[in-house]
């Protein structure tokens, strides 16, 4: 088989034409076979369609001929052309008495028709008849058709007969009847819910074929709910045992494995039944262990079963012995030269890693090889594994890798997928906000159009809210770095729209905040963006609003604003734009620029995007006014929903307005009152009173006031004034509810708009993720110090520590002993410090685990010493900003330490108080590192025959593992030799 004959010989054989087929058919097949291009093939098929149409219109076609025509029609459809003109002939052929013709008819029908095709109704009757046939082959043919053609509406027509056939004397019929029932279950589970016990019964069928087929529906049922089938575990186990002991007929053997496909299905079922169920799992251990032992690991099919065993072992309640066997198999897979086996190995590893995380460490190099492999399939599978083992210590390396890969592929489907994975990992594990922003930038830059817009909103929110701590300097650093990076990126061609929106928003909000860039520089850049993406209205809207913010901040800072000429022309262009939203923004900008500093200050307070906006939905501040108006004889407001069909009601909105839903009419109606705005603005601005001011302008606007003011800031009079102007022109509810126009160009609005876009659920979710991130940011630095590698080096303690962080409950048996040791460390440092940090408990937990290797008394002592030293130096520097502690560095200088620990910016700057503890950790980490790194190098030595290879690998291991994002990678050189 591996050496099938070449096409030349095949053709020679075909041309003899011995198969009782007509010359026409042989010629067709030959010409299709010889076609050298798709175009040629299409020509042949189109010609064939014409021929067939002619032939089929002839009267009295012999049945044999008709069968051949049908096959030719199958060819036509298979090669991508429509053969619907002849479907009816296929339907007719199912009525034939000859078995072969009937079956060919059924085959053609199942290939041609979907189960909701109109012609099906013509077949149901035939199927019913055939199901009653004495010839079991006819029954089988009909059951095949049932599986393909019967939909939920036609199930009742054949169901009783199918159920009857479950007890048929021929095993082939019983098997197909089971599958027909399975099909009904897939189509409409309610129609057959009372018949599900049949599957249980058939499991005990004498015929192994029927039993094997029954496993399919049972697998589906157990997937949905395993509980009702727990009693079958014993049966499944005993069947599997018998299969493995070769009790089944020889004909089921495949490559000397007994019924491997049945074994695999049984293992899948057991995996489901034993999930999270210790009692159930215990019944399976023996048989799974037997299969592990018996399986022939030299054949593909043996390995397929072994892989399924691993899947089973990783799903059921863990058993150390089975895990050991699984680990052995995995390492054999990963060491194999076959890509297929390595693929299976990676997949198995990612399944097992949940249960025993440490096994990944043994296979670091194999995993890295797979990651480096040019084969996309293997690479993606490896990313899947990395995704599962990501934690904050290795997130940088992993996400960087993912992004690199994302950049170089074209497959949008996978690009979207991996981009969302990157975002997910970054949000979950980001070691620092700065890194998070950089990562998001990359994702946006290269896959911006594929990521969910919520991600952009989250990013803006993060930049606005910062760490969520009270440390303003860190926040402003974050923003400056964001601004800086965006100014670097902004000039690049063809950035995705979503990303540009983020850039514009951030530049508008924070572009001039640190005084590094002038307003004209930033606005110039924003103008460039608006110009370069002139057909993207959303980007233009973001840009013009950002420009307005910049100017507003300038004005309120008391500086004179010189509008750039390009900016001027942009505003002019936009105020004549087709988009009303753009016009609105342009006019607002012009209006704001004309105001004095105090007004602008209150319209557009700087850095206020995170302020909460109180919304007075009832517009209670207007009650007084409404009451007065009604007293004067005005009609009360009727909500729009209640005045349908009452056209004349519109009069109360104002005599010059029509109740019209078209934009055109509305525009004209609102154009007039524009002029008075500036006049009103000034007096109002000086007063902070809300209610009395806008009365005249509201007089005709009450009905529309509601939605617009609902997004307005209650507290600010300037805002309200502004809004007032807005209403004159844009009072229509629909406008105000859309995010673009909620941006009454205040910063608050924009964020509000953002959160509206993101939907409230998303918001809360985002907040959650921020919260969790915050805690992670706190833990992160010492983790970073500890985490030597992607795989957590080979140090078990490190692994434990990370799991302890994520799942506190997971208490390890080893934890008890080390905890004493670590306690002493903590006590020591605390004792000298005399001011325990408030969240000491949080930190002591990682310490507990991290200090496990300190069991060695000498090292323990060393740790104590070092932490004391750290404390001392902390005291020296008062602020405790370890990153500025040269003496700590010098203390460590003669040792191969993971230097980045004490100089990692975020921890130290945010947790200055904890510096002593931190350095304690760093110390522990340093000791930890010795082991894994040495091991790396030995592994490499033993593995890499080629010195260049091993060097490369060495570099990679270092990059992947030892020191992610290290600020001073040189420190590791001595360690790694």
């Amino acid at each position: 088989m591996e050496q099938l004959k070449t096409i030349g010989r095949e053709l020679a054989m075909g041309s003899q034409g011995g198969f009782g087929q007509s010359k026409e058919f042989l010629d067709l097949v030959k010409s299709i076979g010889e076609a050298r291009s798709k175009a040629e093939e299409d020509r042949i098929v189109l010609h064939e369609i014409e021929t067939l149409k002619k032939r089929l219109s002839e009267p009295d076609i012999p049945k044999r001929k008709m069968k051949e025509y049908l096959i030719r029609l199958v060819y036509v459809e298979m090669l991508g052309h429509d053969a619907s003109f002849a479907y009816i002939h296929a339907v007719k052929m199912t009525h034939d008495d000859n078995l072969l013709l009937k079956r060919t008819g059924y085959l053609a029908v199942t290939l041609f028709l979907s189960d909701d095709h109109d012609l099906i109704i013509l077949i149901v009757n035939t199927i019913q008849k055939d199901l009653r046939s004495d010839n079991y082959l006819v029954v089988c043919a009909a059951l095949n058709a049932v599986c393909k053609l019967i939909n939920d509406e036609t199930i009742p027509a054949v169901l009783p007969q199918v159920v009857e056939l479950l007890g048929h004397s021929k095993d082939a019929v019983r098997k197909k009847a089971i599958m027909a029932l399975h099909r009904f279950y897939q189509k409409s589970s309610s129609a057959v819910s009372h018949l599900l016990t049949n599957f249980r019964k058939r499991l005990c069928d004498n015929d192994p074929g029927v039993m094997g087929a029954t496993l399919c529906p049972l697998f589906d049922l157990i997937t949905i709910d395993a509980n009702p089938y727990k009693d079958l575990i014993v049966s499944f186990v005993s069947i599997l045992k018998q299969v493995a002991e070769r009790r089944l007929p020889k004909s089921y053997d495949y490559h000397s494995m007994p019924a491997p496909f049945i074994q695999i299905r049984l293992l899948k079922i057991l995996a489901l039944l034993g999930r999270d169920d210790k009692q159930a799992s215990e019944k399976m251990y023996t048989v799974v262990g037997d299969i592990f032992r018996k399986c022939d690991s030299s054949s593909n099919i043996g390995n397929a079963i072994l892989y399924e065993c691993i899947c089973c072992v990783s799903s059921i309640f863990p058993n150390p012995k089975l895990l050991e066997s699984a680990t052995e198999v995995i390492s054999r897979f990963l060491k194999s030269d076959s890509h297929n086996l390595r693929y299976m190995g990676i997949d198995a590893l990612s399944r097992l890693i949940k249960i025993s995380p440490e096994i990944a460490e043994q296979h670091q190099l194999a995993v890295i090889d797979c990651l480096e492999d040019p084969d996309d399939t293997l690479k993606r599978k490896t990313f899947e594994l990395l995704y599962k083992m990501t934690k904050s210590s290795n997130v940088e390396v992993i996400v960087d890798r993912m992004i690199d890969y994302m950049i170089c592929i074209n497959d949008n489907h996978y690009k979207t997928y991996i981009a969302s994975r990157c975002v997910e990992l970054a949000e979950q594990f980001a070691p620092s906000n700065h890194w998070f922003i950089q990562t998001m930038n990359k994702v946006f830059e290269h896959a911006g159009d594929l990521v969910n817009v919520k991600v952009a909103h989250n990013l803006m929110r993060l930049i606005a809210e910062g760490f969520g701590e009270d440390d303003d300097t860190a926040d402003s650093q974050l923003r400056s770095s964001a601004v800086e990076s965006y100014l670097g990126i902004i000039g690049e061609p063809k950035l995705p729209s979503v990303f540009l929106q983020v850039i514009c928003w951030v530049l508008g909000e924070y572009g001039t905040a640190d005084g590094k860039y002038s307003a004209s520089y930033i606005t110039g850049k924003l103008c460039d963006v608006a110009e370069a993406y002139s057909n993207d209205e959303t980007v233009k809207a973001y840009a013009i609003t950002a420009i307005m913010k910049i100017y507003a901040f300038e004005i309120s800072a008391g500086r004179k604003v010189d509008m750039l000429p390009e900016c001027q022309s942009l505003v002019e262009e936009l105020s004549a734009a087709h988009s009303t939203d753009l016009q609105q923004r342009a006019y607002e900008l012009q209006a704001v620029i004309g105001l004095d500093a105090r007004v602008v200050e209150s319209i557009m307070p700087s850095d206020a995007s995170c302020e909460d906006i109180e919304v007075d939905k009832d517009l209670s501040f207007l009650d007084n006014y409404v009451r007065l108006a009604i007293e004067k004889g005005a009609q009360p407001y009727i909500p729009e929903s209640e005045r349908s069909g009452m056209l004349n009601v519109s009069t109360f909105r104002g005599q010059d307005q029509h109740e019209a839903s078209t934009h055109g009419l509305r525009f004209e109606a609102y154009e007039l009152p524009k002029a008075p705005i500036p006049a009103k603005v000034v007096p109002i601005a000086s007063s902070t009173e809300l209610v009395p001011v806008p009365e005249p302008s509201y007089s005709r606007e009450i009905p529309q006031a509601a939605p617009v003011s609902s997004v307005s800031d209650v507290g600010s009079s300037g805002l309200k004034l502004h809004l007032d102007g807005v209403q004159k022109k844009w009072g229509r509810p629909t406008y105000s509810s859309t995010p673009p126009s909620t941006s009454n160009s205040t910063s608050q609005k924009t964020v509000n708009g953002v959160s509206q876009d993101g939907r409230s659920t998303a918001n809360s979710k985002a907040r959650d993720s921020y919260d969790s991130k915050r805690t992670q940011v706190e833990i992160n630095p010492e983790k970073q110090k500890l985490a030597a590698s992607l795989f957590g080096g080979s140090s078990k303690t490190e692994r434990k520590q990370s799991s302890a962080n994520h799942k506190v409950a997971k208490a390890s048996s080893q934890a008890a002993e080390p905890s004493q040791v670590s306690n002493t460390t903590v006590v020591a440092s605390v004792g000298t410090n005399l001011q325990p940090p408030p969240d000491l408990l949080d930190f002591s937990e990682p310490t507990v685990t991290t200090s496990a290797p300190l069991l060695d008394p000498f090292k323990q002592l060393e740790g104590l010493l070092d932490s004391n030293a750290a404390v001392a130096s902390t005291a020296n520097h008062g602020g405790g900003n370890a990153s500025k502690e040269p003496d700590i560095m010098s203390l460590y200088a003669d040792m191969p330490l993971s230097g980045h620990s004490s100089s990692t910016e975020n921890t130290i700057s945010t947790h200055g108080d904890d510096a002593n503890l931190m350095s304690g950790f760093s110390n522990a980490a340093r000791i930890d590192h010795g082991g894994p790194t040495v091991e790396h190098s030995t592994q490499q030595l033993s593995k890499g025959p080629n010195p260049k290879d091993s060097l490369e690998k060495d570099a990679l291991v270092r990059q992947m593992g030892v020191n992610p994002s290290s600020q001073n990678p040189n420190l590791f050189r001595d360690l790694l030799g």
Partner: protein
Amino acid sequence: MGIRFILMVNKQGQTRLAQYYEYLTLEERRALEGEIVRKCLARNEQQCSFVEHRNYKIVYRRYASLFFLVGVDNEENELAILEFIHLLVETMDRHFGNVCELDIMFHLEKAHFMLEEMVMNGCIVETSKSNILAPIQLMDKSS
């Protein structure tokens, strides 16, 4: 569901057999076949026999001029599917004797009948060659 479709395609990318276990329109089939065949034909011998495509995983195996492609969903054991392909080829071989591309082309319906015995509702239901071939041999005799 397991198996979503089974394709046989020659090395020029021409379809020789197509069986879908979920209904796709003609256009969808055409597009899908084009995409996967392009993907699979571009791969070399050393690479994995598995390719991800949209929501499918394609398991493929080459026999001389003919590629066997099986589209499965995520829960399927790829190695087992790879061996399933071989079982199919062995079965056809037993029936045709030294099976080749043209055997399948001239006896398209028989190849389909074999598949009908082996796979139903996207599940592998029969793996015993004698059971698979019995009805086909009976039909041959009777006709």
